[in-house]
């Protein structure tokens, strides 16, 4: 009689994927994102580890992370917390130091990025041996849930401006759902100086400068936070400043 349980593919390729999850006050979302990661990696058969980099969250995110470690094992859930809220760039540097995989996946921990796309990232990476694979909201059947007209206009307008000025060869510059070869991520992070949205743009721009190859995979971005944190004038101003800086220096 045929087995009714789908057999998990055995991947002996020796590749291991380290997922970096910088967290700040993600007590509710962290278990959910970890559960989804475990589900999709389990189904795909790839070897992985999840590195939680908590910046001293006052809501007890670290304590939840410890519970998850007990449930899923210390080889799968690594905790590398920091005492206070520091930048994303330093979180990546910190995470990479402890990553034992040869590939690193960066993503948001607030469920806006869905782990179901990770097997697609991996497949794309293998197709062209890409140095990095970027999730794009702007191509194919990529898209966003939860944005009003104003937000969409700002997003497309900013992206258009970036494309005209920087001609980066990637459709989604400010996205932060990406797969990198570990060595590539290391070399990029040490060269990047910007903050926030511009940091992610700078990573792509520097990747092009260094002739790294970039693949793209359409992703859906489910924004459940937008209602609380509107994209304000300050962020727009700092984005434009950062864009001009990149334009003038790269």
């Amino acid at each position: 009689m045929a087995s009714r349980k789908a057999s998990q593919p055995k991947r002996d390729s020796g590749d291991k994927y380290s997922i970096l999850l910088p967290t700040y006050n993600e007590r509710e979302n962290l278990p959910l994102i970890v559960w989804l990661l475990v589900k999709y990696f389990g189904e795909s058969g790839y070897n992985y580890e999840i590195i939680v980099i908590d910046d001293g969250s006052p809501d007890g995110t670290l304590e939840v992370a410890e519970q998850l470690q007990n449930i899923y094992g210390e080889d799968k859930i690594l905790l590398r917390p920091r005492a206070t809220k520091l930048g994303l760039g330093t979180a990546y540097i910190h995470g990479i130091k402890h990553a034992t995989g040869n590939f690193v996946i960066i993503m948001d921990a607030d469920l806006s990025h869905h782990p179901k796309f990770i097997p697609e990232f991996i497949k794309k990476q293998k197709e062209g041996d890409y140095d990095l694979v970027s999730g794009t909201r702007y191509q194919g059947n990529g898209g966003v849930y939860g944005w009003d007209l104003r937000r969409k206009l700002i997003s497309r307008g900013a992206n258009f401006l970036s494309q005209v000025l920087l001609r980066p060869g990637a459709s989604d510059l400010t996205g932060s759902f990406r797969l990198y070869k570990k060595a590539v991520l290391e070399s990029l992070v040490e060269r990047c100086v910007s903050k926030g949205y511009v940091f992610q743009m700078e990573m792509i721009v520097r990747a092009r400068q260094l002739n790294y190859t970039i693949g793209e995979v359409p992703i859906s971005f489910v924004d459940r936070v937008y209602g609380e944190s509107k994209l304000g004038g300050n962020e727009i101003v700092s984005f434009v400043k950062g864009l001009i800086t990149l334009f003038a220096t790269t």
Partner: protein
Amino acid sequence: MTKLLEWLLGVSLVLAAWAVVSFDLLEQRLPQSYREAAWPMPLYLLVSFGCYSLGTVGYRVATFNDCDEASAELLGQIQEAKQDLRKKGLKI
């Protein structure tokens, strides 16, 4: 070369070509019609680019995918995850 320098170079070349034709700087004795056609070119190019930009951004906003199914799927999976995690002993 930085992108800024590339742009400055490109713009300089275009303006130089325009000036040469519009003001007959090389004394080619070009027909008046050439000079009349060339003279408003920079403005035409700017306006065309402006229209192209508005059209492109407008089109992209209008066709921006709304991932309703993704949100529904996520909500369902969140419920599934919470139940499973509770079974596994997670205390929130």
